[in-house]
């Protein structure tokens, strides 16, 4: 601002001229000790937080594989091979391996042993409470190529892998996967075959949503309802009726981590060389033999040397 006349110097009527009044609330002599105290408090806060907080231990794996063994109808040799195969993969990528038996989680009543995967995953989540991803893979599967980690094979490219706007139960159920859900919001990754969803190979992210989802799925109302395909149909049911579940779910191409053996009944998306996984989904049926099918591919698998 320009003034026609020069100001009249430090007059009492203008109390805010330079330095006439100190604007500071803290007496001048106290500045330095106060700053020191402040810095000390901030440092102490961060130190205490890093010491006492629910810090993640350094050796906690990022990802845990869940395996539920059904020992009743299979030879020990077969079971050992399955375990060895999973161990090879877990060791190659530093994953945790959570192995339990179906008899550890009796579903009760008339419900089949397939239900045991649900409490097993929840158990793995409460055991490895600092891990983020939990990969459940059925016993009737063989990891053929252990080189890609789950992160680089599925989690990182998830956004491009996700199949959007496809019916949950093929060929034409009314409920379809959402078109615009971003990959960051996904908590549950699985595939579908010709008949519907396949909970034989699935990835879950731990957290309150996973607890909700697993508890809802394992509800006795579904367990004892006599769904024709038990836990698979129950899963399809809750996914289609409850949008809070559907919105967290990503369907990815079946061959990503659920290729079927050529002998399986719904032989679409069958295994070809270089696939990550091969599964023998109905090998337990009487005319086939899980162990024979499994052993045929055992030597073809690649190992990490």
């Amino acid at each position, binding site marked *: 601002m320009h003034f026609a006349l020069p100001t009249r110097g430090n007059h009492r009527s*203008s*109390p805010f001229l330079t330095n006439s009044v100190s604007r500071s609330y803290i007496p001048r002599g106290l500045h330095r000790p106060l700053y020191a105290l402040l810095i000390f408090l901030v440092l102490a806060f961060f130190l205490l937080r890093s010491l006492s907080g629910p810090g993640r231990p350094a050796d906690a794996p990022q990802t845990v594989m869940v395996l539920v063994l059904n020992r009743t109808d299979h030879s020990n040799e077969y079971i050992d091979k399955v375990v060895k195969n999973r161990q090879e993969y877990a060791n190659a990528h530093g994953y945790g391996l959570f192995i339990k038996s179906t008899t550890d989680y009796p579903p009760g009543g008339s419900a089949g042993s397939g239900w045991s995967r649900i409490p097993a995953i929840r158990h793995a989540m409460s055991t490895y409470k600092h891990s983020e991803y939990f990969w459940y893979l059925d016993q009737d599967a063989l990891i053929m190529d252990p080189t890609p980690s789950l992160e680089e094979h599925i989690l990182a490219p998830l956004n491009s892998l996700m199949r959007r706007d496809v019916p949950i139960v093929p060929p034409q159920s009314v409920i379809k996967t959402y078109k615009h859900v971003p990959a960051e919001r996904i908590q549950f990754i699985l595939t579908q075959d010709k008949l519907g969803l396949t909970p034989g190979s699935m990835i879950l992210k731990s957290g309150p949503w996973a607890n909700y989802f697993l508890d809802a799925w394992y509800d006795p109302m579904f367990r004892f309802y006599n769904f024709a395909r038990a836990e698979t149909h129950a899963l399809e049911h*809750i996914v289609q*009726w409850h949008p809070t579940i559907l919105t967290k779910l990503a369907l990815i191409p079946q061959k990503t981590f659920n290729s079927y053996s050529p002998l399986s009944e719904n032989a679409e998306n069958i295994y070809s060389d270089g696939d990550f996984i091969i599964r023998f989904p109905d090998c337990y049926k009487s005319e086939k033999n899980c162990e024979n099918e499994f052993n045929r591919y055992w030597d073809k698998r690649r190992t990490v040397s």
Partner: protein
Amino acid sequence: MGSGSTFWGSDGGGGGDGGGESRSTSPGPALPISRSHSPLPTSRASSISNGGGGGWAPKSAANGYAPASGARRFLGKHLRKLSTSLPTYNRSTATGFTPTTPYYRGGGFFGRMRGGMARKPRTTWVCLLLIVSFLYVFLHLHHNPISNRLRGVSGGSKFVIILAANQGGGVMTWKGAKEWAVERDSIANKKAYAERWGYHLEIKDMSTKKRYAHEWRESWEKVDVIKQTMRQYPKAEWFWWLDLHTFIMEPSISLQSHIFNHLQNVTYRDINVYNPLNITHPPSKEEFFYIDEVAKSAVGDDRGESINIIVPQDCGGFNLGSFFIKRSEFSERLLDIWWDPVGYEQKHMEWEHKEQDTLEYLYTHQPWIRTGTAFIPQRMINAFPPGACSETPDDPRIFYSEKDRDFVVNMAGCEWGRDCWGEMASYRKVSERLNSGWWRKHF
């Protein structure tokens, strides 16, 4: 400051040093500028001010000219004076004021206050205290539109009361004069309460309708209504469901002071405190050995923030006649899983209390529900009249007590064989009597 005050003294000619000062600093050349800004009447005003000598703005304004023109002229003339003498924070007030405002004294008012405060600290404190208490009484306690708006801003709009009106809707029975009267009373009661504290009130029509294409889910609308209300009030946090046959007995108590300011202390997480259903809690170790530590604990994580639904219990278990639910991911999931066709198919004959029985079932069988559920002593939000819960007539935890000034009465089950209208009228009278003092009535 002295200069400012005498400058605006209404006696105009005041011969103080300030007057002299002002005359010396208001320059001649400023006048033409102010004229060019002024509308028509200014020609006369300026002639007067010229004739008046010295150009005193108050005179022209006192002659009845629009204050705007007066202000403009005043500014045009004395802009330099203002800007040199005023502290910066005062500038906006100065431009807004007209010279006729009696207490306006340029920079002098605040300056004098500062001086006064420095000289008489005790008087200053008494004055401040008086002002604050006046504001408190009339903006916080007193019931008027401004205070309502303020309460809304100060957190009242975080609460929505959902009142389930028209239950049955006259489909099952004819709705007589008494039913209409009950409904009118109940709605008026909630309306007054919501208005008093700035809460939202949503009255929902719960008449029995075939709302769905399939015949399922008939009259299970509680969940849908809550979801719909949550969409209607996207900024609200807590939703209070109230059945029609409830009466807020103490409208002078806000929800914040009654419950939400000390949520942790008035609710309990461990159902064993009062467990009429004999639900095993924490979940049995044999059945639920695999769940996480928080779900295994009897009190969850025991933090107020994790409380997402607040349920009272009566002699028969959960009571959803009056309960709170918070907008959260948890409640979104709960509201989603609450109704399921497979469950409905199996249990709808058995679960005569619909959502209430379902919630009890879910609480028992799905451990994640327990981590977000808290219970509240029944008399806090859902006291019963003597007619309800006749199985346990002596339980002091259930029935309304006038002496303890219970907050809400729920005349649960009055439509089956009891007189809803009679009960409602008598409780309304009790409430009016209890809240009848001059203080209660006005504040």
